């Protein structure tokens, strides 16, 4: 498809601004003005509407396709939450209003949403308090690691490293590292769990924290999780919970009860806010009692008269990590989702997510190698190692699934599984959808024996065939250039 810039026609307009209603009183001195105007497209409103409507049709999305992208929890995003976020009383509110004298009263509705959401997330995860400020999961991780650093600093300790398993999300070591910590990587044992011998060796009084996902990225719940936490606490280290996989355990166990000290959640995963093609997400962070004072400012507080206010007077706080109170629009959608589902609904989410993942695993285990274990939580990790013997890679299977109308699973992650395919069906997909996907996976496995070339050529039904990614990186073409 042509770029919007290539559709440009000199002099065409797509939007009319109001006529100027004030007298023109002067001009900005020349030295401050730009010499060349930005080359934005010159197109009509219909040009724009048609361009983006047609572009949208080139995407797979949850609303149009099964999207079992492991670790991303691509569940259905209820439509009514979009309506809620668009209510003018919420979407039109300027974030500086509550910072004016007496301004808290101008934002009581939004402050109440934030306050209630912090309480709900605390109860769901068993933590003492939450901040809704982090703007994405990885941003929550960074916030969490900053809280850990502030805690140790407050205790007069300068700890050096954070322990992270080799199966972790890439964001974990990246977040630990940019916050100023060394990363100590622990291998995974034969069962798919944190190798306890290496863990015990690495753990010492220089360990600031242990950063874990539970269930982990292999979809397994580590039965020794309490022991791992106790060992960390014994040397004064804190436990960090990467909440990317919370969809597996709602109402079944709570990170706070296990002994985790810091947790981030991905509202766009477990709490059904749309992923927006790569964001916006929201990554609220919860903490145990001893870390509450370090949370970023502002804090939303409830006054004795039942009104809500912002408190900035927290001298131990790590400061500002976001310009305001978080991705409010996203938080609001997640709040609406939690209110709609309620206690039983949330428990059923995890039960059915785990049921669907185990169903996929059970039906595919004869066709694909299993990475670890015989059952899983909310997602399962298969390996295309057997297919590789025929020269077929996980990538080829993924591309074949695209032709069948399915978004592929996450591939080549976790890094420790050869030819990994990580399937997270979520609770909102019907059995017939799962069955159709499973059949396509089985077909791919059989084609890998009978006609591997068919897999290597896929996809054939998309607007483009396989793209040359090497060329993209070697000769970067990252923007349109005017002729």
């Amino acid at each position, binding site marked *: 498809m042509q770029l919007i810039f290539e559709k440009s026609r000199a002099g065409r307009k797509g939007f009319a601004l109001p006529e100027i209603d004030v007298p023109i009183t002067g001009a*900005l001195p020349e030295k401050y003005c730009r010499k060349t105007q*930005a080359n934005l497209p010159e197109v009509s409103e219909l040009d724009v509407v048609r361009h983006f409507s047609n572009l949208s049709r080139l995407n797979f999305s949850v609303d149009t396709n099964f999207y079992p992208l492991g670790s991303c929890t691509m569940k259905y995003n209820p439509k009514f939450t979009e309506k809620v976020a668009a209510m003018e009383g919420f979407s039109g509110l300027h974030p500086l209003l509550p910072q004016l004298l007496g301004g808290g009263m101008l934002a009581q509705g939004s402050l109440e949403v934030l306050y209630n959401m912090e309480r709900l997330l605390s109860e769901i995860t068993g933590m003492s308090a939450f901040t809704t400020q982090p703007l994405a999961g990885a941003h929550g991780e960074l916030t969490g690691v900053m809280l850990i650093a502030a805690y140790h600093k407050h205790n007069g300790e300068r700890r050096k490293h954070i322990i992270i398993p080799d199966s972790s999300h890439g964001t974990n070591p*990246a977040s630990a*590292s940019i916050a100023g910590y060394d990363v100590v990587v622990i291998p995974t044992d034969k069962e798919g769990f944190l190798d306890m011998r290496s863990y015990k060796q690495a753990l010492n009084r220089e360990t600031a924290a242990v950063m874990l996902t539970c269930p982990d990225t292999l979809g397994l719940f580590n039965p020794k999780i309490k022991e791992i936490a106790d060992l960390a606490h014994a040397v004064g280290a804190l436990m960090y919970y990467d909440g990317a996989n919370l969809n597996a355990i709602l109402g079944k166990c709570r990170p706070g009860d296990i002994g985790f000290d810091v947790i981030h959640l991905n509202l766009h995963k477990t709490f059904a806010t749309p992923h927006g093609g790569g964001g916006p997400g929201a990554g609220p962070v919860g903490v145990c009692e001893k870390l509450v004072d370090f949370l970023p400012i502002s804090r939303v507080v409830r006054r004795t008269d039942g009104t809500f206010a912002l408190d900035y007077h927290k001298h131990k706080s790590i400061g500002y990590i976001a310009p305001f109170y978080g991705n409010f629009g996203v938080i609001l959608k997640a709040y609406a989702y939690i209110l709609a589902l309620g206690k039983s609904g949330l428990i059923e989410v995890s039960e059915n997510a785990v049921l669907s993942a185990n169903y996929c695993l059970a039906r595919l285990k004869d066709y694909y190698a299993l990475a670890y274990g015989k059952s899983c939580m909310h997602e399962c990790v298969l390996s295309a190692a057997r297919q590789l013997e025929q020269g077929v890679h996980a990538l080829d299977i993924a591309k074949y699934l695209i032709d069948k109308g399915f978004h592929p699973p996450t591939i080549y992650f976790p890094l420790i599984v050869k030819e990994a395919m990580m399937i997270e069906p979520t609770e909102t997909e019907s059995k017939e959808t799962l069955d159709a996907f499973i059949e396509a996976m089985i077909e791919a496995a059989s084609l890998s024996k009978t006609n591997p070339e068919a897999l290597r050529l896929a996809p054939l039904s998309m607007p*483009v*065939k396989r793209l040359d990614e090497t060329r993209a990186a070697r000769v970067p073409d990252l923007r349109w250039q005017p002729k």
Partner: protein
Amino acid sequence: MNYIPHTETEKKEMLKAIGVASIDDLFKCIPGGLRPKSFNIPEGKSEFEVIEYLKLLSCKNAINLTNFVGGGFYDHYIPQAVDALAGCAEFYTAYTPYQPECSQGWLQAIYEYQTVICELTGLDVSNASLYDGGTALYEAAMMAIRLTGRRKIIVDSGVSLIYRTMLYAYTSNLSIEFVETPVAHGQSCREDIYKHLDDKTAAVIVQNPNFFGAVDDFSDIAQRVHKCGALAIASVYPVSLGMLKSPGEMGIDIATGEGQSMGIPLSFGGPYLGFIAVKKEHMRQLPGRIAGATVDKDNQRGFVLTLQAREQHIRRERATSNICSNEALCALRALIYSSLLGKAGFRELAGLNFQKAEFAKAALDKVSGVKVKRSAPTFNEFTVCLPKNADEVVYRMINKGFACGFPLGRFYRGLDNYLLVAVTEKRTKEEIMQFASSLEAALCS
């Protein structure tokens, strides 16, 4: 409502295929001692009830005030087509385009968005977006540290306090030296910046227009900074770039900013849009996703995520940033907004903002006791000195139906009587006149 389609019969069939008797069996891997101590969540409500409840809450927010508050976040009109198109479910219910063949719509949109940011800033390369203007500035500072191998950063105090506070919070454990230089006559104080500029300096950070609304040309600063082997970073306001000298024209190395003004609602602070653009030579130190054009097997143009060797999912603890999810949908809104306004419309929008603000300056100057600061030119936001504490004046003005500005004393010591006033294209001549007369009344009472 839980949006789960499984019927009881289907659940039984699935359990049978798995080979377990009940769903509880699937959770046996969680040790008994780890069951929740409590799970006190209210029971679910119908969609109708939830909407009614939230509608009530939304009415507790005051959005009927005539708004002159800016401070980096502006009340611009959003064309209806932005909402309609960003509301295409094939955009908003997709995720990061990891599989390019079934994500060409998103990848092309990101490529187009990157072009818009490069065009506005006059720089060479951008990315798929960052969280907000503050985190974008932090990423720029970290880039400068990596590129120069130096650890001292000079920050002009005309840079938003919100962003400076964020910058210091993120780097508090990284042994980076920050020097803040004062604002003189409204603009960045050259003398002070040059006094601190040395061969240990990684970057100088400035903002245009600065927090007080003053417009500047940083060409001279950029030149001096480059002589020291440091980088010049500017945080900019995109709507102003329809008129103001672009960072590229000034010789700035890294431009960042808050993209909220391009078709994104104020929404109480987010989701917003951080943007970043750099000179070509710094491309491989950029954080986050980048879309690039390439060809498929048949030599047809197509788009992919590229230069991924910088990123966390490949490079892990050695990545340029930890960012994964960004603000793609907000970037899409900014792209649609820029496309609708177009080349002429963007310039016209900037002119409209500038002229209305100039008119407001003249109107407020006529209010007795009020003095508009005119030491430097401004774009659509400016500072006025009131005869009374600005906090109290703002409080009184709220009762008259105006959010009349942001009291600078909240962010700067010694500026208790100063008010920061923003005027966008949405403010009519009549509203500006009423603002002036209400202010007159508020100051008298």
